[in-house]
């Protein structure tokens, strides 16, 4: 009886909470109606642009929120603009209401107080997010997210290879060196400090470092030389066998996709496990391309949407962010024929129609199963990024 009473009290409190919660969200939705949300996001991919256009159409119809996709060639432009607005003391009516962001840009915005504040916990769909198995939804490049951005999709470093010239793919960084020696000029990676190139270097370091625990803690200058020596030795050995003998590097992973299609290179990298399937689907790659990862596993992370401090359409931005988290939007995004961006949700928490949405997502022709992709490796502590980039530039960008 006592227990029953306790449970009753708990239930009352809980329902009070959720009622308050729902009430608050209801107010947000009301305020959002009629707002125009300028969503600043990279615009280099037509499938992604089309997906965003679809999502904007839905929230316009359902919530009366007008979302305008401001396409950026480099989200750094947008961060700069927000910084300029802060410098000019523009506290409201900022030009950006929501932005696609992660990693170092998130860190920069958080450190310089360019973000609005914790909001993702207010989104009703946030409780569906898989915070248990997908740790990177809480730690963006090891920086605590603190609800300052809302997860949107998952990423994992994968390798793309053309099965026509390559019968057996490498399974580790050392294998990759063997491959490069046998096929000079048929592999490369994007120039640092671009983010794809940096990820490749981090992956190599992870596989080559003797004490991989050192990667989880802030960098110590005294250990840097010793810890990274195997990496530089590896790269020194690899570079002469790279595309253009390591004298020229592609500017981005996107450019590598074209190189793969042109047969200039046989192995490329991507941060989206579905990108090969998606590119085959829209004719950008031949259907002989497949995906693989290294047996040690590969680095993974999450990308998010965040609200700048001076947005005047915060509620509208939250409504849109919440919709992006909905099973409906997430399942559509995961479809390789649409975009193929893995979901941040825990599909175990779903039932009925929502679960069916995910079950219906076709597996792409070149996509690995979740089991094959395995658990992702965590990003090294964020302090490694700058040190690695600096050293790489010093050595290979002379």
């Amino acid at each position, binding site marked *: 009886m006592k227990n029953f009473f306790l449970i009753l009290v708990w239930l009352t409190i809980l329902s009070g909470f959720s009622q308050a919660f729902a009430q608050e969200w209801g107010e947000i939705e009301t305020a959002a109606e009629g707002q125009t949300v300028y969503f600043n996001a990279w615009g280099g991919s037509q499938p992604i642009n089309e997906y965003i256009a679809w999502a904007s159409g839905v929230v316009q119809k359902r919530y009366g929120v007008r979302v305008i996709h401001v*396409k*950026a060639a480099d989200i750094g432009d947008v961060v700069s603009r927000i910084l300029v607005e802060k410098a*000019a003391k523009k506290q409201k009516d900022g030009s950006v209401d929501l932005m696609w962001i992660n990693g170092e840009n998130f860190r920069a915005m958080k450190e310089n107080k360019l973000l609005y504040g914790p909001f993702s916990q207010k989104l009703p769909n946030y409780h569906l997010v898989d915070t248990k198995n997908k740790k990177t939804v809480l730690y963006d490049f090891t920086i605590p997210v603190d609800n300052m951005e809302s997860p949107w999709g998952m990423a994992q470093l994968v390798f793309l290879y053309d099965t026509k010239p390559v019968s057996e793919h490498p399974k580790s960084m050392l294998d990759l060196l063997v491959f490069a020696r046998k096929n000079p000029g048929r592999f490369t990676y994007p120039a640092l400090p671009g983010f794809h190139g940096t990820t490749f270097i981090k992956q190599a370091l992870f596989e080559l470092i003797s004490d991989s625990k050192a990667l989880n803690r802030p960098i110590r200058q005294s250990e840097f030389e010793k810890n990274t020596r195997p990496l530089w030795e590896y790269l020194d050995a690899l570079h002469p066998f790279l595309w253009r003998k390591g004298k020229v590097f592609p500017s*981005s992973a996107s450019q590598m996709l074209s190189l793969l299609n042109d047969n200039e290179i046989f192995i490329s990298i991507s941060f989206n496990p579905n990108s090969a399937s998606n590119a085959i689907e829209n*004719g950008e790659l031949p259907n002989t391309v497949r995906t693989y990862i290294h047996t040690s596993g590969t680095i993974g992370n999450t990308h998010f949407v965040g609200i700048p401090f001076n947005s005047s359409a915060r509620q509208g931005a939250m409504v849109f962010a919440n919709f992006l988290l909905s099973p409906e939007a997430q399942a559509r995004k995961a479809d390789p024929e649409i975009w193929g961006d893995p979901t941040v949700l825990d599909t175990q928490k779903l039932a009925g129609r929502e679960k069916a949405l995910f079950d219906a997502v076709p597996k792409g022709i070149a996509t690995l199963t979740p089991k094959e992709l395995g658990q992702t490796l965590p990003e090294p502590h964020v302090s490694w990024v700058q040190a690695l980039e600096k050293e790489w530039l010093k050595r290979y960008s002379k």
Partner: protein
Amino acid sequence: MRLSRQGTSRIFPVFVIGLFGITILSGLLGTLLPSMNYLPVIGHKHVSLSVWFDFFSYPGIKTSILVTLFSGLTASFGVVIFVFLFITFSYGNALWKIFEKILSPVLSIPHAAFAIGFGFLIAPSGWLIRMVSPGLTGFVYPPDWSILNDPAGISLAIALVIKEFPFLIMVTMGALGQLDIEKTLLAGRALGYKKEQIWLKILIPRLYPHLRLSIFAIIAYSLSVVDMAIILGPSSPPPLAVLILKWFNDPDMSFKLIAAAGSLFLFFVVVLSVLLVYLIERSACFVSESWITNGKRHSFSARFKSIVFFMGVCIIGFTMVSSVVLVVWSLTWQWRFPDFLPAVWTLKFWAKGLVSSFDPVMTTMFTGMAAAFIGLILTIGCLEHDVNFQTNHIMQGKAQNNNKTLYYFLYLPLLVPQITFMAGIQLLLVIMKIDGYWIALMWSHLLFVLPYMFISLSATYRAFDRRLTDQAMLLGRPYMIVLFRIKLPMLLRPILFSFAIGFAVSVAQYIPTILVGAGRFSTITTQVVNIASGSDRRAIAVYALIQQFLPMIIYALAIILPKILYYNKKGMQV
């Protein structure tokens, strides 16, 4: 009796000097302060030189500066020398006439669109090698050659020469009207000189002063080019201007300071290079004096002539084929090496591209039209003031005064690298709360539109035979009526042409559009750059072609309109 009006027309140059001067100087200030470590918003409040130290110790900076100098100066010298050789050997011949015809469509090709096409042409997996593979070369897979993005920036320099050549030829054609070409040639021939010698010894030295500022603009552009350098230039390290843009966009905010220092340094490099060219010009005058007057009558070997001819054909060829390859890509579904043509074709990308670029195209058209229209009023206003000013001076018996200051201010946006002052202007606009307004966007375009319009119109405008207007005024018509009923209608063709150039310049603006537009305005050029940051060449080709098509419409109108309006006045059609 006063045959001209000077007092009220002074407003035009004053307006231009004032606004151009203020905008650019404040932009420079916005760059100077961060370069001295002063950017309070990210916590840097103490002025020091440490930023400059960071700049000069950035890995690869020396190579980056050298690559910038090499590709920029090679391109500038290359294009100037080649233009001189080209007029010397080809003036008036068939190739020259072809150039006169195709000049406007070629000029209207945006730099980025050309670079994309050119890159796909010359890459080791590009169209040229596909044409002969595997048949002649045996390449089943593309060779691993550093033709594109070569570390020294040679492919970038070549592309710059090809792209700047028509611009300088256009300026030259305008200036030639002011020299008595035929008479000089006739006199020279009578004295026993060959045609080529007359050009080199007499006409080109007289032509040069008319081209000087345009040449300076070419130097500044080649040293600070961003879009072409990203596509065709080296990557590690990239040319300075690309590096600066990367720093501006770096997540680590402290790089904004280095970017500011870098862009001032780039400006410094431009100033030094311009000075260098000026010194070369002076010493060339000094050295060549005896050569010019030595009286020798050499003839040139025919081989020299055919090389120049061949290069001229190459420039036309590369420009045309670069556009053709874009057309092929835009219709591609799948196209792999070494296929000469795509394996699977599609119209899907056009269907998608045309729909999604409708709004950006409208923005581009409105902005370009408005900027070119205001540019036209300012250009004509300034030129009219200038012409009258000079006439008055002559009539009052004063020495000829060239009213030079105006031109320097006018050319400032072309001489100062865009990136050096646009970031400062962005801050200014945000403080004044006018960023993201269309009017600010249009103004920022006007900064670059006006000088090009001025360059293209001034020669013909000044060469206008003022006896016609004098006559009309003597017949009792007021100045304004004479201007609008006689002078401007007679100059309709060059005026429309200059309008088309202004429009084309506005269409091509990227950095001003993103910095001033606050993301509120998407033009066809921002679309091209965005989609080019991805990998889909088919979509890139569609947008690049749309971008190329817009200025071409206006050029076509500029050619056709006078023919329609003056269909019954043959003399006015020229």
